């Protein structure tokens, strides 16, 4: 299988009221990568993800599977995205099964997106199955995240860790080409974190799904990612994780800036 570029970001700048949230960054992600993005709170990680997903205006260039602009709409549904925050009514009458089934997109959309990707130079070789076996797909996604036993449970009755896995199952059910996870374990207990990381590793290795995830957990990044991007509005590093973790100066700078922001947030909250 040829190694192809899934995401290509070039000279990306995003401003909020003339202040840069993301400042002229460039990087790429190859097929099969598990890219961990680290950076303190307010570093622009979520803004970057929103720009990649077409939810945020920007200057610069973003290519997904070699495509940009008008054909973006056909590609976006083939991406699984688990945002940092999912807000819903506490008594929303939906079961785990209902929510995961929302992730399924129509055959027409899949065919449209895959056709486009196959037409480009990147020689995409994933095979898509029709969504007619909808129930099998949902069961499979729930099995992957270990939630088969909770399929008929109402989502309002789930714990944070269980909810997080429901949203990952929802992202997985459409056989995504790329999975984007925004701080997926921010408020989850340690046991659920381990379960989550095992799921991520399995999805990446066994299903060959490219993953981009943001996290503050350097230990997890060192264990599960193969590439690292370190950003705080600007991109300070992008490359193999071994290189990142062997650069003591960079690690020290990251840890200190992260700590300063943490302390600032803490003081701000106290006042």
């Amino acid at each position: 299988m040829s190694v192809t570029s899934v995401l290509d970001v070039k000279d990306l700048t995003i401003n909020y009221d003339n202040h840069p949230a993301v400042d002229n960054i460039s990087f790429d992600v190859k097929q099969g990568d598990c890219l961990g993005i680290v950076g303190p709170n307010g570093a622009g990680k979520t803004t970057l993800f929103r720009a990649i997903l077409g939810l945020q205006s920007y200057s610069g260039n973003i290519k997904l599977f070699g495509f940009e602009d008008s054909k973006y709409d056909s590609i976006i549904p083939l991406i699984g995205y688990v945002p940092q925050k999912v807000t819903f009514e506490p008594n929303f009458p939906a079961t785990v099964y209902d929510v995961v089934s929302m992730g399924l997109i129509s055959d027409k959309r899949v065919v449209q997106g895959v056709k486009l990707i196959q037409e480009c130079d990147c020689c995409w070789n994933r095979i898509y199955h029709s969504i007619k076996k909808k129930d099998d797909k949902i069961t499979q996604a729930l099995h992957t995240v270990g939630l088969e036993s909770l399929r008929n449970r109402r989502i309002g009755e789930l714990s944070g860790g269980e909810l997080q896995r429901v949203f990952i199952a929802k992202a997985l059910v459409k056989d995504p080409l790329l999975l984007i996870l925004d701080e997926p374990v921010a408020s989850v207990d340690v046991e659920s974190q381990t379960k989550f990381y095992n799921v991520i590793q399995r999805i990446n290795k066994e299903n060959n799904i490219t993953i981009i995830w943001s996290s503050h957990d350097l230990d997890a990044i060192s264990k599960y990612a193969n590439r690292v991007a370190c950003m705080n509005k600007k991109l300070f590093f992008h490359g193999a994780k071994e290189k990142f973790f062997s650069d003591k100066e960079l690690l020290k700078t990251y840890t200190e800036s992260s700590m300063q922001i943490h302390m600032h947030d803490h003081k701000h909250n106290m006042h």
Partner: protein
Amino acid sequence: MILEALSYTFMQKALVAGIAVGIICSFMGTFLVLRRYSLFGDGIAHVAFGGISVGLFLGIFPLWTAFVVSIIGGLGLQKLRQSTKISGDAAVAVVLSSGFAVGVILVSASGGFSVDLFSFLFGSILLISNEDLIMILAISSGVIITLVVLQKQFLHLTFNEEQAKLGGLKTTLLNYAFVILASITVVTSFRLVGMLLISALVVIPNITAMMFGKGFKKTVGISLTISVFSVITGILVSYYLNVAASGTIVIIAVGILVGTLILKSTGVLRKVDIKTPSKITHNS
């Protein structure tokens, strides 16, 4: 006694129309309540009053003008919520009062209409004609079919609009389809309970059904059952007590809500908090 009531044609027509309206109000209401559009029914019904006045003023069949003006009002409401910082309830208040104001001006300008406007305000299900019945059944069938076809899309849109957009749904188009469908539902239904009580049929069966803590399909099923039961018993009880059918239907629906709340507080129903003040935010 029930057989005696059912032997009258006007009662048969009332029951058939009532069941159709009960179904579309509660089905559409599931999405309206979850999208925090609970007062949308009220707003559109008031706009419909303006539409009826326009029809009567211009000498056009008033229900058609009510449909047109209500759909315009519904789209205006949607636009107001999307493109300004006006909150949902305030936007409903603006549209509601504007529509009603137009109605009041036209009524006063023409020195009062010959048609009994009270029937539009408080409902007149026992006076339904054959033409009304055919129209209600045809429109209700259309609304039900559309809702069944689009229910998954509407559910996703209701759950999280941004996620629905990323899933490839045409959210802007769906939002407009939703508002048009809701406006049609309200105008078709307010002949039953009147514009002042329409929100009850949209909201009460749904918040009652949501207390049962079930998934989407079962919640819709419970809501439909409560709604249809309230309509049938309301019409029959109002016949025997010789009181207004619209008020009786609403009071029965409220009675079921109160009964469910009591069952819940005594632990007979599984405890599910229906009035948690804010939305759940899952910080994944």
